[in-house]
């Protein structure tokens, strides 16, 4: 009984860790890889497409979208071109899907609860976006995030050192990943990132504003598009502060004023994110972002990932309210410490 509980706790924390990292390796159950229920059409920008307009004349980006995709942020080492052929893209997707549905990770039991492919609505069972791109990063042209500056590297070292002095991950809730703590999850960004599961968004446009709701932890980004001045530098937020404007049919959103507690790929709090949303088909938005952070990277870099239409609506994701994981994991760690202390005492007798 005790063993069983421990195993479940480990599996849950593994799943949470995976959700955070949004990696492609997932502990799964022995269900065979099923065909995705719906695979949205590849995003193929059509020059002729004229996006619909909202009643007040904004290019209409509204609806429910997902950026769930198998396209990795950085180009795989053995790939040298920017785009796959159709056959290559399908093969790469199949390989990634197989990795995702592969059963247990070594050392875990096959009979796991809350398995992604069963309950997580991961890419094997929900809409996901396909693209011929070999990587989301397209600038620099090698498809890799550019090298870090000396200052950026130093910051990474300092962050790692601070993490070490703070103690073990399960010593304190503050040492645990912010997704596990239900503060913010990877998908919200900015930039929007494929969150591994529930990578769903709702866009609503009203007079003077665009709102992007990320399903995970009901994160609503409210973007004014009324040319108001830049926010004062004293206000710092987890997801920064966004200002938007339209360039033709493209919504351009600039976000600054990050608080540095949720650094995107170890960026600084002075990072500026520029996102560009262009409706290129009834069921697709071209989503590009540029990261401008000279104190972290030797040059600005840009990436593109597809946003495709998905069936709504979005349900409430009350994460913190049901976060039994944190208390259970911490209590388990304290229990282990007690047990270890007891054994030490016993062995010294």
């Amino acid at each position, binding site marked *: 009984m005790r063993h069983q509980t421990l195993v479940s706790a480990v599996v849950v924390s593994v799943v949470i860790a995976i959700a955070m990292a949004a990696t492609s390796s997932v502990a799964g159950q022995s269900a065979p890889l099923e065909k995705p229920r719906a695979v949205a059409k590849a995003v193929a920008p059509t020059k002729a497409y004229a996006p619909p307009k909202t009643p007040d004349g904004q290019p209409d980006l509204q609806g429910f979208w997902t950026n769930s995709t198998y396209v990795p942020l950085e180009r795989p080492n053995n790939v040298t071109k920017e785009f796959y052929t159709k056959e290559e893209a399908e093969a790469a997707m199949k390989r990634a899907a197989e990795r995702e549905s592969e059963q247990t990770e070594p050392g875990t039991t096959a009979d796991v609860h809350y398995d992604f492919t069963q309950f997580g609505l991961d890419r094997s069972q929900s809409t996901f976006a396909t693209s011929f791109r070999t990587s989301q990063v397209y600038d620099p042209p090698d498809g890799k995030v550019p090298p870090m500056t000396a200052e950026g590297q130093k910051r990474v070292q300092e962050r790692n050192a601070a993490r070490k002095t703070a103690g073990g991950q399960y010593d304190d809730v503050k040492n645990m990943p912010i997704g596990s703590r239900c503060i913010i999850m990877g998908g919200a960004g900015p930039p929007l990132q494929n969150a591994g599961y529930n990578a769903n968004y709702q866009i609503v446009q009203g007079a003077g504003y665009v709102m992007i*709701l990320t399903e995970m932890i009901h994160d609503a980004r409210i973007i004014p598009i009324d040319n108001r001045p830049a926010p004062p530098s004293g206000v710092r937020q987890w997801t920064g502060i966004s200002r938007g404007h339209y360039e033709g049919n493209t919504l351009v959103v600039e976000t600054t004023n990050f608080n540095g507690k949720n650094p995107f790929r170890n960026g600084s709090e002075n990072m500026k994110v520029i996102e560009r949303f262009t409706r290129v088909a009834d069921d697709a938005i071209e989503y590009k972002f540029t990261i401008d952070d000279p104190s972290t990277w030797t040059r600005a870099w840009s990436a593109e990932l597809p946003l495709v239409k998905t069936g709504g*609506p979005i349900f409430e994701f009350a994460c913190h309210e049901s976060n039994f994981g944190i208390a259970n994991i911490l209590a388990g760690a304290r229990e282990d410490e007690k047990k270890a202390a007891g054994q030490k005492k016993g062995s010294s007798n």
Partner: protein
Amino acid sequence: MPNRSLIATSAALLMAAGVSMAQAPQTPAPARPAAAPAYRAPRTADGKPNLNGIWQAMNSANWDLEAHSAAPSPIKEFGTTGAIPGGSGVVDGGTIPYLPDALKKKKENQANRLKLDPEVKCYLPGVPRAIYMPYPFQILQSTKHIMMLHEYAGAVRTVYMTDQTEAPADSWMGWSNGKWEGETLVVDTKGFNDLSWFDRSGNFHSDALHVVERFTPRSADTLNYEATIEDSKTFSRPWKISMPLYRHVEPNAQIMEFRCVEFVEDLLYGHLRKQPTSK
């Protein structure tokens, strides 16, 4: 004199119903927002009353929906900064019509507020509490969806204007379907769990809660807000709250991030630290 004739009509109706004027309530009913001089709101591009904006209640309903006197802070160290301001109440008729057992539970809730109030733990506020918490919220209006975007805990509600369905599951913020009745946005919300409260005084509900809200523009920068609350497991009859909401008119008004989970982690998990901060 339409007023005169209204009174005469009412009197006639009362007499006809066999009720003598002497038995009629002595205090006149409070003026209904509906009776306020009709205000016609500006229209959105799709022709609907324009409720877009950042709004906030200006009352002490979040402390107690019912009338209450000022009181000291429940935490001594906060001094005056944590004191409770008095309020005349926002419940029509003054009292929430609890069933006897529910009233007992309300009193227990109130006595153990710091331990039990979901707001203390940064939990989602529920409805209608989200509307009159001491934080602004933004209404963002589109034809299909009207968003209620709350600063507190980043709580969000989508009001479905066209693609309406039954609540798919119980939730903290419920499942809202909306419609326009003249100048008024009417929002019908069901599918609640039984975990949220109405205020810091332990007023509560069950999962049978059904809330019908009415947002009616009353001037360029104010709305009338009414919520009718129905929950046969908790209350003996439906009851109603009403209050004005005020627009944030400052040009740099915006909903700020208030990610309060981080603020309550020590409170909720501090005792599980390797070196506990508290017992």
